[in-house]
């Protein structure tokens, strides 16, 4: 740090921060509004922004339409279509578990993102701005007219929405649906109709912020999709509930990010900090705010995931067969052997994720980052510190544990949603701010990573990996079947049990998270060793999303799930010669995960109010309630049915008495 900063030094950053923050605030309000009204946190919120920006780009640049037309379509016409879809999807998800809901919108996000990447490529494109870029001087600071206009438009939308939400009849209905959707329905207003209005506004806000931010961020799928991260950082300031505070949170994040830009401009180490600011804010909120203030919205089924497709016995047989087949792979794979080697590493990665997601119902979105931590640590230990290979592999796992726990501990005590958000942020923070530092992969983003001397050849090392994959899978299976695993399954996703049992459950959850992180770290070390170099490139934060969706796709296969997931991720792309197909693969994964989530939510709903299980024990022919005689009031007369049954019915509790007693005590 150099000397003191005067206000005048900071002013430009403040102005820039407020102008971008205003747009973040708008996006965040849309996110919070839809979350409050529907109970579903939309991880795909940023994708909506991306879609509208790309629609505008497509119509304006590629098709040459006049900008007002392109803008109108992108911001006014497209969002209602998305809102319609979102309302439908979230309606079907209402009965699902927290994990189901998270997976569904992450699936959506992956679909949109991968489709945009496949369609427009990953490189940032020039966004054809529609606002003048001349600058004007505001309180002594030069600001682009476009930026200023964006900020004012966003602020006006936010203000207009506050007024709408507080004053209009629809605003009252939206608040009513947050309070008690059943009561709203009893009053003759469809809760679904109100929610679809909320989705409409949420999507409009997302679309508007996408088009307003694209000129500054560039037309970059990843950056625009990440708007959801800015938005949830802002939402955290409003405790995922207050709309005005959420908008203020957007301003705060904008300003913090701008100030961070100023400070890190002197430091190579923290160059990635500004984009990770929302995570820092979220993390602070998670740490500082008690459970009561961050209650989760929306009812959730305590029911665990639906029945696996495979019985335990057949899963075991499959596992044995898989190991035997895997042992034979080097004989036939020839030049593709490295593909299978990395598949074995993925078996470990997916096994550790499986433990977390399927056994305990916790969704972690930092898994790729934990693997990356393992990778880089391994290199530092073996090459830097000269430790023996095996020791370095295991220690790489050990180091990944506290990194993951750091965010897991404050989040787990709250709810599955906050764990997902916090880990999403952690993955991003590590990727943006730490991957490039000397702590991890360094500026060149590659570190040497040797294999053990005795197993230098691809074939020999393949068997080392196979041994690790088997051992890791066994470890995970053991944990899953131990008392710990049963406990976790029993209370997977039951916030009420969670709070009644208190700390004990949180400790077990954290333990599972730690085991999972350890295995992920080990997998990272092996991945590096297999490739003979450690690099962060395969472990960007979006990889975590892909992994999650693939795992969910394969989850019906019990313990065999991770192996199939590994094949899908590592082996299948290697045999796809068609480039576009390979690019479209994540779209399919996203679709698959979305469908699985919808299916599970439907199954949970059916269990919730569907066919009675005790159909058989209902006595037959007891139509005591059936009416005799003709319709009309006379038909009300029933015989006093089954006097015999009256005699044997258990003596009932005192009702009139208790009623009076209750009346008296109030």
């Amino acid at each position, binding site marked *: 740090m150099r000397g003191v900063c005067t206000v005048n030094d900071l002013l430009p950053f403040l102005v820039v921060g407020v102008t971008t923050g205003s747009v973040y605030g708008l996006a965040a309000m849309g996110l919070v509004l839809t979350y409050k009204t529907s109970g579903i946190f939309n991880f795909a919120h940023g994708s909506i922004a991306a879609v509208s920006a790309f629609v505008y780009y497509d119509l304006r640049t590629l098709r040459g339409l006049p900008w007002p037309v392109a803008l109108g379509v992108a911001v006014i016409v497209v969002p209602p279509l998305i809102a319609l879809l979102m309302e439908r999807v979230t309606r079907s998800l209402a009965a699902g578990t927290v994990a189901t809901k998270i997976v569904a919108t992450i699936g959506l996000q992956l679909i949109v993102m991968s489709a945009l990447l496949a369609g427009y490529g990953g490189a940032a494109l020039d966004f054809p701005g529609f606002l003048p870029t001349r600058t004007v001087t505001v309180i002594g600071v030069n600001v682009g007219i476009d930026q200023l206009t964006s900020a004012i438009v966003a602020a006006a939308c936010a203000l207009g929405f506050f007024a709408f939400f507080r004053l209009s009849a629809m605003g*009252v209905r939206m608040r009513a649906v947050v309070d008690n959707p059943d009561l709203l329905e009893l009053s003759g207003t469809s809760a679904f109709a109100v929610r679809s209005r909320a989705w409409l506004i949420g999507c409009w806000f997302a679309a508007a912020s996408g088009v307003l931010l694209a000129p500054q961020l560039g037309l970059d799928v990843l950056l625009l999709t990440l708007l959801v991260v800015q938005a949830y950082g802002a939402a955290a300031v409003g405790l995922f509930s207050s709309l005005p505070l959420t908008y203020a949170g957007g301003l705060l994040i904008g300003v913090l990010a701008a100030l961070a830009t100023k400070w890190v401009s002197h430091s190579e180490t923290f160059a990635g900090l500004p984009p990770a600011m929302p995570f820092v804010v979220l993390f602070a909120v998670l740490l500082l705010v008690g459970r009561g203030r961050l209650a989760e919205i929306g009812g959730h089924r305590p029911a665990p995931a639906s029945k696996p497709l495979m019985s335990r016995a057949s899963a075991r047989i499959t596992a044995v067969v898989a190991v035997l087949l895997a042992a034979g792979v080097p004989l036939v794979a020839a030049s593709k052997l490295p593909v299978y080697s990395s598949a074995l590493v993925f078996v470990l990665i997916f096994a550790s994720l499986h433990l977390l997601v399927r056994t305990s119902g916790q969704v972690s979105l930092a898994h790729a980052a934990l693997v990356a931590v393992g990778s880089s640590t391994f290199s530092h230990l073996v090459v830097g510190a000269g430790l023996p290979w095996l020791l370095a592999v295991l220690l790489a796992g050990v180091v990944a544990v506290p990194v993951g726990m750091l965010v897991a501990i404050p989040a787990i005590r709250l709810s599955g949603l906050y764990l997902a958000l916090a880990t999403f942020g952690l993955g991003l923070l590590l990727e943006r701010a730490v991957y490039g530092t000397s702590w991890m992969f360094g500026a060149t983003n590659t570190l040497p990573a040797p294999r053990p001397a005795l197993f230098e050849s691809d074939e020999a090392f393949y068997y080392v990996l196979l041994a690790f994959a088997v051992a890791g899978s066994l470890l995970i299976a053991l944990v899953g079947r131990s008392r710990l695993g049963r406990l976790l399954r029993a209370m997977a996703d039951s916030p009420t049990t969670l709070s009644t049992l208190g700390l004990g459950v949180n400790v077990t959850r954290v333990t599972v998270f730690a085991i999972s992180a350890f295995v992920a770290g080990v997998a990272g070390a092996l991945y590096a060793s297999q490739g003979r170099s450690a690099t962060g490139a395969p472990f960007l934060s979006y990889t975590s999303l892909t992994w999650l969706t693939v795992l969910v796709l394969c989850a019906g296969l019990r313990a065999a799930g991770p192996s199939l997931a590994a094949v899908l991720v590592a082996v299948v792309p290697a045999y796809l010669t068609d480039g576009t197909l390979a690019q479209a693969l994540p779209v399919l994964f996203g679709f698959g995960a979305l469908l699985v989530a919808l299916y599970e939510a439907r199954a949970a709903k059916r269990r919730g109010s569907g066919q009675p299980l005790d159909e058989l024990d209902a006595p037959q022919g007891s139509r005591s*309630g059936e009416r005799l005689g003709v319709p009309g009031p006379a038909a009300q007369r029933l015989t006093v049915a089954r006097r015999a049954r009256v005699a044997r019915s258990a003596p009932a509790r005192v009702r009139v008495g208790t009623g009076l007693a209750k009346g008296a005590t109030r």
Partner: protein
Amino acid sequence: MLQLDGISAGYGGARVLRDVSLWLPPKSVVALLGTNGAGKTTLLRVASGLLAPTSGRLSVDGEDLTGKRAHTLARSGVCHVPEGRGVFPTLTVKENILIQAAGGDVGEAVERAVSVFPVLGQKLGQLAGSLSGGQQQMLALAHAYVTEADYVLLDEVSMGLAPVVVDEIFEFLGRLADDGRALLLVEQYVSRALELADYVYLMNRGRIEFAGEPGELDSDRLVAQYLGAHT
């Protein structure tokens, strides 16, 4: 007529209602009595569309509305004042009435609500959650009067209230009945409910075990037997 025929319903695997039939004719008052956990609330939830039955038929004035959602039934003239406090705590009294009016004229709705419960008139700008228990219940009950629903389902609306408030509420119920609304009354004050009622249903373990006029109910004995209490 609000008509439930052969209704079975439950939560998850547990079946609560078994083959229940109950008719609520226009302009009549029907009392539904039963012990704790008999399934009265569940029956009202089915009748107002909050809970879809697994079998059976629900109709209003001859129109089959089985499986329709609650807002449709509400628009067909069924008003359900639920167990507990049927108000939106974070909305003001006036906003609550706005919701109750379901798109109708708010000013008129407020007038009607205040005409039956004058105390609400002084609280229009106050959050419903900050009203006293009795006032909250009055607000919830105002719904029935505001909407001009033909069939009003009332689930223990006097629960937990001071005796004076209970009196006021029963007075209101009498007024609703005189106004020509049909009432389905689930009540803990059995004798007061029977005073109003034209018909009585007794429910036990998810079944109707008696239906008839209050006079037919050998009240002391039956009530003692079914409800384990003396009135």
